[in-house]
Each structure stands twice: as structure tokens, then as C-alpha cells.
């Protein structure tokens, strides 16, 4: 961060009203309004959450490998920290459920969204459109702090009496209300308050991003010259903006149910444990599901679109040719955004749905798979005729394609209601969505980290460690998630604290697979070690980059000094061409930056 000092100097004598004093540590790193610092804050925080979410899952997997026996490796630790819930190192069913709920919540809302949207969106979007910062820098800071405290609250809920939320990341009512009924500030309550904070953070972020993209595009940066990554962020912003508020409303309603004992989601006549629940009744459990999935489905595209954006950038750069069908990709991403709001009830086929409604929702579900196919196809075809460099970011990006392909394709039998009768809530679903979020999104994000690391720090990450990380992760991910399809086909249900032993004989293959999946998850954990080492070592001792544009990229993010100073560009850049002018016939180099004068 060499240039940081010089900017600081510049602003010390600066004329801007906002920067008339030397920023101290707090101003510079904690309450910064610079989109790049905020991006890095988001990035580091969400990586820690990601790791934590993974560790929760590792405990669960280790339990599943040996149901009823002490958890290997972490058993003692769990007992020390959590006491009763992990007596003798064995996870109680409640503890398993809370870990599951928190794994889902943390991975989705505290890991991937902040990393994909908060970190990459913040760091890269303004650079790619040639803007000095986000449109509302102080709002940006506020979103990060809301996110941070929302996360802290969620983590804190592990230590309240009764433990943290234990009703799944979907938090279905009435279970979410009934589970700890009568305990005023239970884990579920904290979960809900945490969610309201996280949602508010995302809403502010979304307003900021969309405004930035609409208003702060530099001269010549017309809509069809935007890098695909920016398009993906733009649509993601709208998904967050319009899909999150209903969940916020639902969260408030469930909070009322939990704290004030209203009955928004509680029907008349609940008898829990043989006792009539002392509430008025008159509510509807399905209302919660509608409001949740109205967010829930757009949310999964929030998880995938930024990753697709990153993958598109990395593929264009490393095939050294333009993206094939850029326009069709843009239109597809817009249709995905639009359609994703009207497919939500495909998560609810089995809640008692007539033929008409379920036909509507499965039709829209099939429609939304078409633009996904188009984007994937365009990315696949972009490979043809390229001159492909297999560096670490490219390896992750290129393996994103078949991994997302598997995840997406297995979405189809879930999307048809008739086949979902059998597959619903089985491990097939777990396999489906982990293929899209883990080797899909997470790989896309890894690609992004390796790709933009040189811009952020002025140094490269180690290539050998990167390759080890990639290959072990690729193998690990597939060994973890592919067997889940078989478990699902065998009818094994998800969220089983005992790994399904109650339903299957212990010698059943579905159960045997639990062991091998767990071992593969351990492999996956080992695979992350080189990455963590690499990330921290490279900040100080990575190979220095030669110039500001080490990858020979065309987009504006590489036209800034490295790392970019406050305000990003020395002079306002002007854009003359599309985002991916690689290997233009007759050009001297194999790339023409967007801001090169014709």
C-alpha cells in the first residue's frame, strides 16, 4: 500500500472540505468511506465467516460419519465451549440443528453475499466504470457496519440460553416460534434481529450500487460497454433491493410472534407437547414460506450472478478473446433477474398446491433455466478459438462452468413438480445447491481473489500454492457433493442429526456414503490451508507486479495506479470501445484497453 501514504499527503493539503485533516487509524481502516477499504473490510470479514461456517459444517459432517459417537477432532472443543449441548463430545440433535441453521445462514448471508456483492462489488465496480468512488460513500460505510454488527449478533446467539437458532436457515414457522416458546430473548430472536440488520445493510448497499452504476459511469461508458461483471452486479443490486424487503417484513412479523406472542404465522389450535399453545391463532404458516422464498429464490441468483460476472471477466482475459455473445449474456442476466421474482413457490410444491398454481411456478422455473443455459453456453463457446492461459484464476473460472452445469442441471428435476414429490428435501437438493454455491460460486469467488489480488496489493499470489489449492478443492468438492445425489435418489432426507440411521439400516449404502463424504470434507479443509497461507504471505512477500496491468486486461480497473489511490483515477478516464477487445486483428498487442484513444 505504498501510494496510500502519498494520497494521504495530498489530502492533508487538500482543498476538499471532507479531508482537511490527517486520517487516523480509525478513519483509515475502520470508518473509512473509501470504497476500496470498505471492499477489503467486507472481504476479510466475510472470509472469516466463510471459514467459520465451514468449521460448523465440519463438526456436523464428523458427527454424521459416526452418529451417536463423539465428534472426531472437535469433540472436546465443542464440549468445552458449548457444555450440555455437546456432552461427551457428542452433538445433541438440537446442537446439530443449530449448527445446520447457522451454517446455512452464515454461508449465505454472512459469507457469500458480503464477499460477492460487498467485497468484489465495492472494490471492482467503481473501478470498472471509471468512477472515483461509490455514489454515497458514507452510506457505504454504514452498510458495512450494519453487516458487521448483524454478524456479531448472530454469532453471539450461540451463547444465549437455549442456544442459537435451530430451525434451519429457512426458519419456518411455527417451529421457529415454538422451539423456544416463552424464553424471551432466545437464539431465534437474535437471529431475526441479526437478519434485519443484514437486510438493512444489503438494502443500503443495493441503493448505492445501482445509483453508482447508473450515475457514475465515466465518459463513453455506455450500457453496452459495461463489463459483464458490472451487469451482474447491477442485476444483483435489483434482486437485493426488491426481494429483501419482504423478508425484512417477515422477519419483523416473526419477531412479533416470538417476542409479543402474536400469531402471524401460527394457525388456530396449536397443541405443542400436549398443551394448547397460549396464543390467539388465526395466522398462516404458509405466509412465512411465501415471504421467505420471495427472497429465497432471488437470493440464490444473488449468490451466483456476481460469481458468473467474475468468471466472465477471467475467461475473457485468459482466453485472450472477446466474450462470445456478450449482448445475449446481458439480456439473459436481465431476464434471470426479472424471472427470479416469480418462481419462488417451486420450493413449496409439497405444501399443498393445486395443479394450476404449481403449473404456473414450474413453467416459470423452466423459463428461468433458459437464460442460464444461454449464459453458460456463451461462456463455453468463448473458449473456442482462444489462446488459453491456465493460471490459478483461470483454473477456478473454467472449472466453474461444469460445476455450475451439474448444479444447474440437477435443478431441473427439482423444478418439475412431479419429480420433486420424490426429491424434495432429500440430499438430492443438498447436492443440487451445493454444486451451484460451493464449486460454483465459491470457485468463482476464489477466481476473483486470485485475479484482483495484484490490483489490491501490488503483489501476486503464489502460483504453486494456488494450483495445489485448486486441484485439491476440485477433487474435494466433487467427492463431497456427488455422492449426495445417490443418497438423495435413495430417499435420504436432509437435516438428519443421525445421518439417516433411523430410516435406513446401518449397512445401507446411503449411510456408508456419509463416511466417505466426511473424509472428503476433511480433504477439502486441508485444501484451504495453502490458500490461507498464500493469502497472508503474499500481502508482504508476494512477487511484485510489473506495471499496473499484469494480466494484460482491457477493463478500466487495470487503468488505475496499483493499488488505486483515494479517488482512483489520476484524471477522468474516457472510454472508446467495448469491454473485451482482445486479439483484435491488426492491433499491435493482443489487447486494447477500453480507455486507449482510437
Amino acid at each position, binding site marked *: 500500500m505504498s501510494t496510500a501514504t502519498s494520497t494521504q499527503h495530498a489530502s492533508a493539503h487538500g482543498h*476538499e472540505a471532507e479531508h482537511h485533516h490527517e486520517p487516523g487509524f480509525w478513519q483509515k481502516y475502520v470508518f473509512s468511506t473509501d470504497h476500496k477499504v470498505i471492499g477489503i473490510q467486507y472481504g476479510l470479514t466475510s472470509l472469516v465467516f466463510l471459514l467459520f461456517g465451514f468449521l460448523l459444517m465440519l463438526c456436523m459432517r464428523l458427527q454424521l460419519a459416526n452418529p451417536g459417537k463423539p465428534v472426531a477432532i472437535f469433540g472436546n472443543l465443542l464440549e468445552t465451549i458449548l457444555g450440555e449441548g455437546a456432552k461427551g463430545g457428542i452433538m445433541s440433535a438440537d446442537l446439530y440443528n443449530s449448527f445446520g441453521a447457522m451454517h446455512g445462514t452464515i454461508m449465505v448471508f454472512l459469507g457469500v453475499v458480503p464477499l460477492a456483492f460487498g467485497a468484489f462489488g465495492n472494490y471492482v465496480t467503481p473501478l470498472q466504470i471509471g468512477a472515483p468512488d461509490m455514489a454515497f460513500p458514507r452510506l457505504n460505510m454504514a452498510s458495512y457496519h450494519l453487516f458487521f454488527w448483524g454478524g456479531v449478533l448472530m454469532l453471539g446467539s450461540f451463547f444465549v440460553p437455549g442456544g442459537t437458532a435451530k430451525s434451519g436457515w429457512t426458519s419456518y414457522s411455527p417451529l421457529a416460534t415454538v422451539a423456544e416458546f416463552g424464553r424471551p430473548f432466545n437464539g431465534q430472536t437474535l437471529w431475526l434481529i441479526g437478519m434485519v440488520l443484514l437486510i438493512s445493510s444489503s438494502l443500503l448497499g443495493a441503493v448505492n450500487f445501482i445509483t453508482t452504476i447508473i450515475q457514475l459511469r465515466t465518459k463513453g461508458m455506455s450500457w453496452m460497454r459495461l463489463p459483464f461483471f458490472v451487469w451482474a452486479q447491477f442485476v444483483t443490486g435489483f434482486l437485493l433491493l426488491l426481494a429483501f424487503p*419482504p423478508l425484512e417484513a417477515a422477519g419483523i412479523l416473526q419477531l*412479533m410472534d416470538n417476542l409479543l406472542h*402474536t400469531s402471524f404465522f401460527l394457525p388456530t389450535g396449536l397443541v405443542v407437547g400436549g398443551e394448547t399453545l397460549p396464543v390467539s391463532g388465526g395466522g398462516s404458516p404458509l405466509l412465512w414460506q411465501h*415471504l421467505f422464498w420471495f427472497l429465497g429464490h432471488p437470493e440464490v441468483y444473488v449468490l451466483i450472478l456476481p460469481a458468473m460476472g467474475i468468471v466472465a471477466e477471467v475467461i475473457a482475459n485468459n482466453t485472450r478473446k472477446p466474450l462470445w455473445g456478450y449482448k445475449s449474456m446481458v439480456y439473459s442476466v436481465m431476464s434471470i433477474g426479472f424471472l427470479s421474482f416469480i418462481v419462488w413457490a417451486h420450493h413449496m410444491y409439497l405444501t399443498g398446491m393445486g395443479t394450476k398454481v404449481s403449473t404456473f411456478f414450474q413453467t416459470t422455473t423452466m423459463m428461468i433455466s433458459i437464460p442460464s443455459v444461454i449464459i453458460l453456453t456463451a461462456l463455453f463457446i468463448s473458449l473456442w478459438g482462444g489462446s488459453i492461459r491456465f493460471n490459478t484464476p483461470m483454473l477456478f473460472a473454467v472449472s466453474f462452468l461444469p460445476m455450475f452445469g451439474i448444479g444447474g442441471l440437477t435443478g431441473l428435476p427439482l423444478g418439475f413438480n412431479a419429480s420433486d414429490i420424490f426429491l424434495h428435501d432429500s440430499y438430492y437438493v443438498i447436492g443440487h445447491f451445493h454444486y451451484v454455491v460451493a464449486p460454483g460460486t465459491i470457485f468463482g469467488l476464489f477466481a476473483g481473489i486470485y485475479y484482483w489480488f495484484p490490483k489490491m496489493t501490488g503483489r501476486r499470489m503464489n502460483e504453486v500454492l494456488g494450483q495445489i489449492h485448486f486441484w485439491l478443492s476440485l477433487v474435494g468438492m466433487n467427492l463431497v457433493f456427488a455422492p449426495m445425489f445417490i443418497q438423495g435418489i435413495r430417499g435420504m432426507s436432509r437435516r438428519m442429526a443421525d445421518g439417516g440411521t433411523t430410516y435406513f439400516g446401518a449397512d445401507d449404502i446411503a449411510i456408508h456414503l456419509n463416511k466417505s463424504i466426511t473424509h472428503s470434507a476433511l480433504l477439502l479443509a486441508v485444501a484451504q490451508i495453502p490458500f490461507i497461507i498464500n493469502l497472508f504471505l503474499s500481502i508482504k512477500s508476494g512477487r511484485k507486479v510489473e506495471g499496473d496491468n499484469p494480466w494484460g486486461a482491457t477493463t478500466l480497473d487495470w487503468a488505475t495506479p496499483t493499488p488505486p489511490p483515494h479517488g482512483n483515477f489520476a484524471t477522468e478516464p474516457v472510454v472508446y470501445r467495448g469491454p473485451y477487445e482482445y486479439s483484435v486483428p491488426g492491433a499491435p498487442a493482443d489487447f486494447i484497453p477500453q480507455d486507449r484513444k482510437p
Partner: protein
Amino acid sequence: MEIPYTDKARPDTGLYNAKVGIWLFLASEIMLFGALFSSYILLRVQAPLGDWPAMRLGWPHGLLNIPIGTFNTAVLITSSVTVVMAWASLKMGKLAAFRRYMVVTLVCAFGFLGVKSYEYNEKFTHYELRLKSGEVYTGHLAVNGKHPGFWSLSDIWNLDRLNKEKVATVEFVADPKKESHGAKHAEASHEHVTLKPKVADIAHLDAFIPRNHPFFAIYFTITALHGLHVLGGALVMGYFAFPGSRMWKTKPEQFTNRIEVVGLFWHFVDLVWIFLFPVVYLL
């Protein structure tokens, strides 16, 4: 580089940043209140047929105080026109007029909140009483001869609490029975009856608070959320009317824009009320 278009409009969109931002924010607010209104409709549609309180979970009609609600609607509409007048004053360069209009707006805002809290209190001190014999009353409760005071939440009673505190009988001033279905409280003509039910004979007793009925639940939730918006808007406007108006000297355009943006938010709050009022008071 400075962030562009904080005061001037961007040529191709014709908008300055904050204008885009506030409209996006309002779009998300539309979805927020949209979800709450949808919840209201769903809860209401699936409520059993028949009017509360005769039918335990039927949907109540005409339970809220319509004259007061109408008055509050007028207050909010007034504040909406004064805020736009404040902005127009700035456009004409009249800071003093701007400030006068803002003060009126603030008075309206806090007036609205004051009236609302009076209405809340009216509900918190109003009770539904069901006797085991099947008779149903609404009215006011006195325990140990004590009527609950204004806004003292600890005075809220229910059956559990009566039993826990070993109260044997309570005093209940029952409202006059309603006229036929869906009609208003017929006031002066009928007298209030005072009952002295034994706690042992009570099947259900609860104030008109959220947990008592889905109608109260959704009514309090939406109006409270709306009230928070009013409060938030009022605080921001208070800031701009006084300390924040310093900006007028240095950046008049940006200041005018900010007032426009605050105004947009305020009109939205008004808009929500325009629907909320008929939906919860009249229908």
C-alpha cells in the same frame, strides 16, 4: 477526483445522484409495505366469517376511532403540502419561508405521532372479556379499583396475570353493544354497564394488544412501522430546517436537492398512510 453529479444532473439520465438513490430506496419501501399489506390481506381473507368480537377470530369492523383517524389523515396531508412548499421556497431563494414551512411540517409530524400514541393508548386500555357462560364484552377494566393510566404498559392485564396475582373479582365497564353488523359504536344513546365478574368465570381476558387478535397484530405492526418512518423523517427534517441549513450558504443547489429528496421520502410516508387509513379504519 470528486464524486460527480451530487448537485448537477447527469446529462444522459437527467438526474442527480440522490434523486436516483431516494427513488431506489422508495422502491424497496414499496416492497416492504407491499409485503405487510399482502400479509394483511391474507390474514383477513382466511379469517373465519363473522365479526369480532362475536366470533372469536372473525375480522373486526369499525374498531378504530374514525374521526381521529380522519383528523390525522388531514394532518399528514397538510404536512405533505407544506414540505413541498418549503422546497418551492428554496427554489425561489426564500430561506425564511422555507424554515416557516418546515416548522409547520414538523408540528404536523409530531402532532400526528401524538394523536397516534393517544389512539394506541386507547387500545391498550380497552379489553375483550369472554365469560365461561359464553357472553362477550368489550370495555374497560379496573383491577382492585384501579383503572389503568395513560401509557402505563404495566397496567395491562390478562387472565394469566389475574390468576397469578390471585385477584378474585374485577370490575368491567362494558361498552354499549354494537348496532347491527359492521356498524359504528353507537354512543350516547346506550349506557355503559358495569359488571363485576369473578375471575373464575372468565374464559378470556386481554387488552386490545397485538397478541390478542391478528387484526391488532397487523394493525399495530404496520402503523408502528409507519410511525417510525414519520419519526425518522421528522428528525431528518428537523436537522435540515435548523443546523443543516448552514449548507444553504455554501452549496445552495445541493441543499435544495436534499430538501427535495427528504420531501420525496415524506410524500411516500404520506402515500402509505393514504392506503393504510381506509384499509385499517374503514374496511
